[in-house]
């Protein structure tokens, strides 16, 4: 019994030590000379493996690169999944998470977020001229989405009269749309734009729909490190003001990119 309580005390002490190590992340990063960023490796164009170079590239990698350059340190990329990104941040395996993570209040309990750096909005992908323009048109229709996604819940709430069919992946949902099994596919607009672009005839499809739900992406930061968060927020705003954001956005979402998506949004800028 004594041994057990000792082991538990040791475990608790280790946990606290690990917690204490998070203080002053900014100093740690500068000391190590490297910013470790947790990014997605299969979510084009945010973070994915480039076909030629076989390296992870994407919009979010460029955002992290900007932060690393500003600190004068090297950028190290570490792939994370939706399941691992928050634990990896809390245990210190990564310094920042840029992995299409929606800023949710419930996530604030474990980590902190930067200001929104990408305004993902849930939209619909439909056949052009198919008669569906808004969520209201979906009454009595079938809508495809992916299993376990927030889009699945949101669309059901926005249009209770539609039937949601969930597929394993978005490419499968798009295939179902092409085969006429569903009348629309719904998820975050950039993913829909990407889906549309993969088709042989992209002009046949259309990303449409009014407001369904906001999915504001924020950079995940360790809890309670105000200096570090201030730095990230200030850098994001500077990135916007200097036009660097527009440049990076244009590279990945511009009219000539594989995933064209008009920028109708303005970053929250503090005077």
């Amino acid at each position, binding site marked *: 019994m004594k041994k057990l309580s000792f082991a538990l005390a040791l*475990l608790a002490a*280790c*946990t606290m*030590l*690990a917690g204490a190590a998070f203080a002053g992340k900014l100093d740690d990063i500068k000391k190590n000379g490297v910013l470790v960023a947790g990014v997605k*490796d*299969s*979510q*084009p164009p945010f973070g*994915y*493996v480039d*076909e030629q170079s*076989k*390296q992870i590239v994407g919009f979010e990698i460029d955002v992290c690169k900007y932060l690393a350059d500003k600190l004068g340190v090297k950028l190290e990329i*570490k*792939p*994370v*999944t939706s*399941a*691992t990104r928050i*634990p*990896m941040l809390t*245990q*210190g*395996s990564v310094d920042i998470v840029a992995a299409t993570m929606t800023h949710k209040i419930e996530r604030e309990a474990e980590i902190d977020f930067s200001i929104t750096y990408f305004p993902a909005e849930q939209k619909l992908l439909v056949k052009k001229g198919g008669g569906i323009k808004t969520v209201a048109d979906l009454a009595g229709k079938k809508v495809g989405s992916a299993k376990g996604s927030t889009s699945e819940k949101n669309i059901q709430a926005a249009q209770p009269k539609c039937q949601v069919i969930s597929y394993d*992946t*978005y*490419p*499968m949902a*798009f*295939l179902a749309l092409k085969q006429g099994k569903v009348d629309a596919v719904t998820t975050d607009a950039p993913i829909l734009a*990407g*889906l549309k672009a*993969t*088709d042989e005839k992209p002009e046949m499809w259309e990303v449409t729909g009014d407001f369904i739900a906001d999915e504001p992406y924020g950079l995940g930061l360790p809890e309670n490190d105000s200096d570090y968060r201030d730095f990230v927020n200030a850098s994001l705003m500077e990135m916007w003001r200097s036009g660097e954001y527009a440049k990076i956005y244009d590279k990945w979402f511009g009219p000539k990119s594989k995933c064209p998506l008009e920028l109708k949004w303005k970053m929250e800028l503090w005077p």
Partner: protein
Amino acid sequence: MRWDVVWNNIDYFLWGSLNFDTQNMRVTGELGGLALAVVLAALGIFGAFWLGLAAGLMRLSRRAWVKAIAVIYIELVRGTPLLMLIFWFYFLAPIVLGTAVPEFQSTLIAFIVFTGAYVGEIVRAGVTALPKGQMEAARGTGLTHFQAMRLVILPQALRNMIPSFVNQFVSLTKDTSLASIIGVNELTNTATQVNNRTMNAPFEIFITIAALYFLICWVLTATSRRLEKHLARYQARGR
């Protein structure tokens, strides 16, 4: 069908971003895909064999505390899904050890611990299946218990265990696909990456991946069949 997508990425499926730079004569990139799955499976099988052998023999021990350790280990691990073990090792290691364990090493430990428990039971079954007279006769010649086990019992028992081992090892090889959950870039993960990038050839990609898994498992079973045939020559019983 869009088999060109598979063809364009086949090198990535087979060995990840590993690349031999002919100009500078050095290797760049990181091992991934099928090669990483094979490395993970091979190291996992090696580790699980020795851990399982120890666990199985400990379970047969007459010392109560030695037996208890083995029983607790085997029962605990067998009653836990592998996915949970992978998560635990990955997320508990930093709390217990104070530093983060890299993804590859952490999944490898989970595979060894998981498969070791099953191998332990196979070893126990194999040893108890031998007639009692074998041990008695060996001890009668003056061998110690340890010597009798090593020189007489195990060489016979292990041969009989081969089919069960192969079962377990084939299953481990396929389970390496679970490593993708914490971001190890093995075969399944490379397939997801390419599928999400290209989006227009999901069936072609996953049929290829299934074929690759089948191929390595088939090599494993074929090798074991040859090994069994070879070893059957020395088998005294069952002719």
